[in-house]
């Protein structure tokens, strides 16, 4: 899951990056509205967290701008408790949700999961493909009874593929949604991580879940 953070308070911005990265999201961050619009215009983000009170271009203006440009990225707005107006205007301008400052990260993470469920139209936090289960709340992954330990990046990759189960994903798509702009690895990074995942998930299993589609990319599905 790739997320954009737009927050002008540097400390808070960094804290959110740190926390979200730790939770397995790939994160880009900016400190003003104009940059936020540019980032979002790339279309790679699964969600954005926008501070409403930003100098220059406010979060509301960003919302209005991206909706005008038909960028459908769901947005959570950060507002002060004192301003009911901002909250309402944020929702009216097309924000999917709002969170009041000061917030706890637990709450922010829960809201993000709800948002993801809405975006991917899943009912619960648990994603399933065959006997493979991924719980987005506890971040636990199981194959049958077997508990699978994944690195943050592996987790993010698996989550993205499970959300798109049955859909063939190109390397570009995967890279754009799982890695952020700071990543400067080689072009075969996707292949490398797919290999890691296969080793942890499919190795020793009778039924393989990760399939290569020649010339196009990868797909996660139950049947062959």
């Amino acid at each position, binding site marked *: 899951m790739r997320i954009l953070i737009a927050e002008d308070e540097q400390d808070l911005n960094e*804290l959110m990056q740190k926390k979200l990265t730790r939770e397995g999201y790939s994160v880009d961050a900016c400190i003003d509205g104009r940059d936020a619009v540019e980032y979002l215009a790339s279309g790679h983000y699964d969600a954005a967290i926008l501070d409403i009170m930003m100098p220059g271009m406010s979060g509301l203006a960003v919302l209005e701008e991206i909706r005008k440009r038909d960028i459908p990225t769901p947005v959570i707005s950060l507002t*002060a408790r004192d301003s009911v107006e901002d909250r309402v205007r944020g929702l009216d301008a097309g924000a999917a949700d709002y969170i009041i*400052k000061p*917030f706890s*990260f637990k709450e922010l993470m829960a809201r993000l999961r709800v948002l993801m469920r809405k975006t991917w139209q899943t009912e619960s936090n648990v994603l399933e493909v065959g006997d493979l289960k991924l719980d987005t709340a506890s971040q636990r992954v199981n194959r049958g009874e077997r508990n699978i330990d994944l690195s943050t990046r592996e987790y993010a990759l698996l989550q993205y593929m499970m959300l798109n189960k049955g859909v063939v994903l190109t390397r570009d798509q995967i890279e754009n949604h799982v890695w952020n702009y700071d990543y400067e690895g080689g072009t075969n990074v996707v292949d490398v991580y797919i290999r890691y995942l296969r080793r942890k998930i499919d190795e020793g299993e009778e039924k393989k879940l990760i399939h290569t589609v020649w010339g196009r990319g990868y797909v996660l599905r139950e049947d062959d």
Partner: protein
Amino acid sequence: MRNAKIRTKITLWFALVLALVIGITVALLFSVGETVARDGARTDLKEVVTENGGQVRYTENPSRIDPHASVIPWGSGTLVVKTGFLDQFNGVDCGLYDAQGQMLFGQKMPSVSGGTPDFQDGKLRTVQAGKKHYYLLDRAVKIDGQGEVWIRGVIDREYDRELFLRVYRLLYLFLPVLVLLASLAVFRIARRLLSPVEDIAEEVGHISRETDLSRRVSIDTGDNEIRSLVQAINGMLERLEGSYRSGKQFTSLVSHELRTPITVILAQSELALEEDPPEEAREAFEIIQKQGRRVNKGLDSLLQFIRLENLAEVYEMEEVNLSRVVTDTCREFHAVREKNIRLQAETEEDVRIRGNASLLRVLLENLIVNAYKYGVEDGVIRVSVAEESGEAVLSVSDDGIGVAPEDRERIFEWLYQANPTTTPKGGSGYGLFIVRAIAELHGARMELDSAVGEGSTFRIRFPALQAAGLP
């Protein structure tokens, strides 16, 4: 009359004054006219009687009598009454009598009550006949060596007055019609002149209902009193808008400047705690987090207070489902496990009042937080909403430490806390103050039942929806 519209008042006063003025004028005219009429009657009488005196002659030589004249044998000769004798003229009846009172010629006079009066030369008298009053005047005509005859004239005292009376009657008939027509005209004029006042009232009402302080009254009637009124109102709106805006800017500035660092502090300590720090550091972070939350809560109340006191925000009052506000707010407290206190809500469905939902939520939150603070271990907090004789009653009761009688008024004061040695620490001291401010804003009455050691019940009685009297 006190509550009548100004245009009605103007019209009524005008009609009253007009009727008075016309009435007085007519009365004056009447009295002058009466005097003039009586004078006229007297003058006419004198003239006719004097004139007729010259028309009576005595002769003993009949051949010299004018053939048209009347001839009356009298004494040894003849009395000649010339054709110039006016026996009925200008209302004067005139007759010729001998000294014994025998009528010789002319008009009979009306039968005077108290008998025919004696002759008195040249003296004007008033006599009564039936219901009428008459002026009476006699004049002696001396005849050389033969004695005298009398000319007696009478005139109805009211004779000339009749004419005036007819005019007055006409006037009295027309007076109400005249007043009515004039009042109608004044009413229309007053309504036209005063209509801007109603327009102004409507515009100002609209501004206050819409709570849009950037609007101004736009009515212009030219350079007159109405324009000064409009200017005064607009000046006031200007100042109101200014203080509203600066109040809002202030709270928004305070909010942003203080909340951002608190957000960072809380977020940082939350993250640090996740990293499984050593015991001492964990304690330190937990204290930072606890105090950070407290600062934040204090800031909430402080800003809420500033808004309520300075009206930095115009709260929109609308129909609110109090039951739903209570149910929603109580649900948020379900996760609270403080002192193992249970929170019970008993709400009647659909109790509606006129108010502001977010303020009501703040009011209830403060009451519940207060109940937790002063509640006892394993206690119960009961929140209820019910309709009682037209009022909506919200009550929050606890079985906590209670409020001493001497503290009952003071607990609603700013920053007041009951006896600090017996009450728990950590209260902000403005929770109940805010509760009262919000209750007052809703026109509600507050009641407190409490016994030390048994608990307290705060009851807030909101006026019925129709009688709330809020704009």
